[in-house]
């Protein structure tokens, strides 16, 4: 194929295109090149025979991995140790009934301040958003919502004492305190278990649960919550009404001159005060309960071969002792039985 004539108008074109070298190639060059080719092909075949192809191995490994993951996922779904959803299932229903609820485990960030709309220039998007989200009548401020949180956590741990210490320090660092604790030994299997009840600040409950779950294998985790806002408001209204009634009774008492009526009013006022104090204590308890979440944790040492063996050995001693103690009864009986069987044979 001749070079394109319109490429360059250089006289050297002709020099280069007519620059053949008269020297012919060696006669055996083609054979040498073909021999090189065959040698390379043979080397490749030999290498392929010696080195197994990794593709099937990798494919089998990938398939095994996928199957293992699928099996693990299926077993996890069936296992009782499957991670439990910590969200409150009742929250949507409560929100429907009582209005928007406060997040169960953490407080919502404060809403950004909305800049007022400039006068005469229409509403800014932020102002329009603020107006569109204005609370409806009867709306309860989320910050005033009262949620009663209650969580249960059962763990299997390697060693009970270190786990208990860690749990205690975690509760302390979360600002909580232990209400009640119980330590028991399961004699038959020589493993100990302990349970305790703690009160922690409601905002710290979720983080604390996450930390506690890391101490062992989770067997049971349960989170309950109850919106007590309505109860709280009703109690508050009752107390306010009772206070107003009391004030009215006191006013009547001060105006009344009749001693008999004054005496009756005085007794009524005292009764009402006692009743009001009981209501105040109740609402105070409710307030405390809404600020302090209740957490019940149960820990049990994991069942290992060593513990089973220790349990068996610990039972062996009492069994031997019981056998020795009752030997007074069964040993003479066995001797008598042996003699009774031998005597007819001798006769």
């Amino acid at each position: 194929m001749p070079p394109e004539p319109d490429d360059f108008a250089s006289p050297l074109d002709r020099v280069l295109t007519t620059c053949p070298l008269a020297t012919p190639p060696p006669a055996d060059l083609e054979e040498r090149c073909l021999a090189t080719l065959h040698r390379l092909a043979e080397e490749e075949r030999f290498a392929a025979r010696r080195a197994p192809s990794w593709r099937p191995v990798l494919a089998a490994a990938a398939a095994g991995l996928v199957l293992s993951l699928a099996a693990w996922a299926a077993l996890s779904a069936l296992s009782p140790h499957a991670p439990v959803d910590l969200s409150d299932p009742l929250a949507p229903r409560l929100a429907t009934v009582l209005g928007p609820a406060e997040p169960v485990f953490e407080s919502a960030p404060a809403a950004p301040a909305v800049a007022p709309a400039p006068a005469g220039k229409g509403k800014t998007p932020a102002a329009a958003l603020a107006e569109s989200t204005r609370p409806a009548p009867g709306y309860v401020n989320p910050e005033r919502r009262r949620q009663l949180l209650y969580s249960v956590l059962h763990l299997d741990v390697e060693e009970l004492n270190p786990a208990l210490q860690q749990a205690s320090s975690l509760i302390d660092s979360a600002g909580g305190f232990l209400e009640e604790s119980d330590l028991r030994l399961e004699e038959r299997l020589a493993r100990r278990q302990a349970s305790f009840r703690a009160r922690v600040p409601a905002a710290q409950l979720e983080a604390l649960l996450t930390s506690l779950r890391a101490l062992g294998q989770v067997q049971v985790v349960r989170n309950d919550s109850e919106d007590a806002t309505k109860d709280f408001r009703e109690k508050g209204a009752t107390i306010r009404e009772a206070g107003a009634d009391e004030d009215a009774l006191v006013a009547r008492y001060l105006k009344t001159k009749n001693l008999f009526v004054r005496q009756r009013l005085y007794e009524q006022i005292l009764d009402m005060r006692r009743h009001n104090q009981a209501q105040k204590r109740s609402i105070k308890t409710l307030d405390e309960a809404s600020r302090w979440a209740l957490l019940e944790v149960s820990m049990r040492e994991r069942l290992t071969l060593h513990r089973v063996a220790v349990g068996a050995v610990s039972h062996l001693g009492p069994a031997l002792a019981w056998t020795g103690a009752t030997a007074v009864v069964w040993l003479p009986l066995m001797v008598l039985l042996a003699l009774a069987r031998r005597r007819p044979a001798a006769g």
Partner: protein
Amino acid sequence: MRKDPRASALRRREEHVWEQLVSSQYERIYRLHLRLGPGPDTAADLTQDTFEAAWKAAPQFRGESRPEVWLYGVALNVNRNWWSRRRPEEPLPEEVIQDLPDTEPTAAEVYLLRQQHELVCRAVARLPETYRRALALHYFLEVPAVEIAAAEGVEPGTVRWRLHEGLRRLWILLQPALGKELGQDAPRAGRLRLAP
């Protein structure tokens, strides 16, 4: 550009396709190596090396150019590597290339050059890699600029410029030697510095 049907067979290293390629191209490859410098024995060795290198690089052949053009590119790489092991590259000083006037050979000079094949080939071998590849593919192996562009992954205009610039630089290299061949007195000082 439509892919060559032989590309996949070459990638799979099917021997009969490779044998056809060797039988049809070994002579051209040999002549290419011979023109670019080494003697006949070395050119024969480099021809073998070219086919070996092409066999090893076959999986990377994308089939965007004719297999022959791809093979020529491999041959030029083999040749360059051989030269790089032999002597360090001696590029032309750029300032000299810029300073020289854009002259062309006269008819007498062209006639003389056509008698001096070895002189021309030696000068081509001294060119920088980019221009040497373009000139060798286009003039020695008769590959059109469009195909060179496809094989090198550049625009056809770039290849044409490389060819033009390569010819200019080639003439700069040939001019002083030609002066001696013509029996003239020493040429201008600038040209003496470029004598091969």
